[in-house]
């Protein structure tokens, strides 16, 4: 069993509304007539449903069968369709240059830096030349930076709570520029807000292949 099989059914991990950066990305994609989109780490499927409602052919992947099953039920309830595959984002089972959009929210940073790099190479491979990629990363300024045991530079394993045993990699702008150097245009934005006195800080990267 994957650890996310237990985490994803928790309400706070399966919100209904799309993340604001995904919603704004998809709006711009609609203008450019996106036909196929991939959601890496689709979880319970909120973004799959959102994109499918916009008329986009969607594909969702996850390591958690529980997440995939939740996504499948959500899509079915709404009369929507998606291709769902259990696979690893570092080894995508898709042909080259397939997707016009690749999104990944609250997921890619649950890996070590080497694995994040492999994931981004795979995203580049499966994206078309006009594709838009939208991914969020944890900032080193966020309140949870340093929580848990550091297993490599800026990468920690949580020791308590629902994400016990889960990796978190925290990054900065320099590292992000290096990770996305193969992309044509890269926009890196820091998004911060305070929730119950805690600073939540993340990077939003939108890149064109």
């Amino acid at each position: 069993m994957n650890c996310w099989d237990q985490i994803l059914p928790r309400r706070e991990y399966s919100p209904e509304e799309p993340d604001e950066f995904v919603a704004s990305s998809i709006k711009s994609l609609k203008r450019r007539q996106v036909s196929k989109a991939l959601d890496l780490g689709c979880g319970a499927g909120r973004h799959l449903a959102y994109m499918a409602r916009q008329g986009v052919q969607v594909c969702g992947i996850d390591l958690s069968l529980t997440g995939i099953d939740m996504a499948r039920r959500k899509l079915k309830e709404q009369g929507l369709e998606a291709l769902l595959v259990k696979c690893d984002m570092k080894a995508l089972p898709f042909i080259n240059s397939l997707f016009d959009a690749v999104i990944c929210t609250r997921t890619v940073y649950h890996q070590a830096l080497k694995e994040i790099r492999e994931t981004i190479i795979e995203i580049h491979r499966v994206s078309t030349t006009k594709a838009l990629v939208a991914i969020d990363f944890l900032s080193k300024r966020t309140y949870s930076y340093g929580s848990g045991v550091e297993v490599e530079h800026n990468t920690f394993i949580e020791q308590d709570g629902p994400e016990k045993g889960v990796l978190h990699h925290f990054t900065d702008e320099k590292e992000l520029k290096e990770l996305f150097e193969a992309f044509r245009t890269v926009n890196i934005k820091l998004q911060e807000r305070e929730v119950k006195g805690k600073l939540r800080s993340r990077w939003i990267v939108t890149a064109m292949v």
Partner: protein
Amino acid sequence: MEILACPIDKHHPLELHVFEEKEEIVEGLIVCPKCLRWYPIRDEIPEMLPDNLRKENEDLPFLKKWKEKVPEEILSKGKPFTLKTGPKKS
């Protein structure tokens, strides 16, 4: 199937073997003819994991269940597991 490639060697096209079908393929097998890796479709979901995330105790019972319909080459030479030899190294 036209968009799927082997997650390991990226070979395309892959072979599809359907074992049980309703509105969708319920159970089946996806095979990479190049490296002979096989990937189960269970409960309508293709499971296309790299070798290090595969679990022999979950995958071999699947192969055993459908052994009459699985190509002989996969039963004897498939990766990462076969019914005849157990785990197979790449």
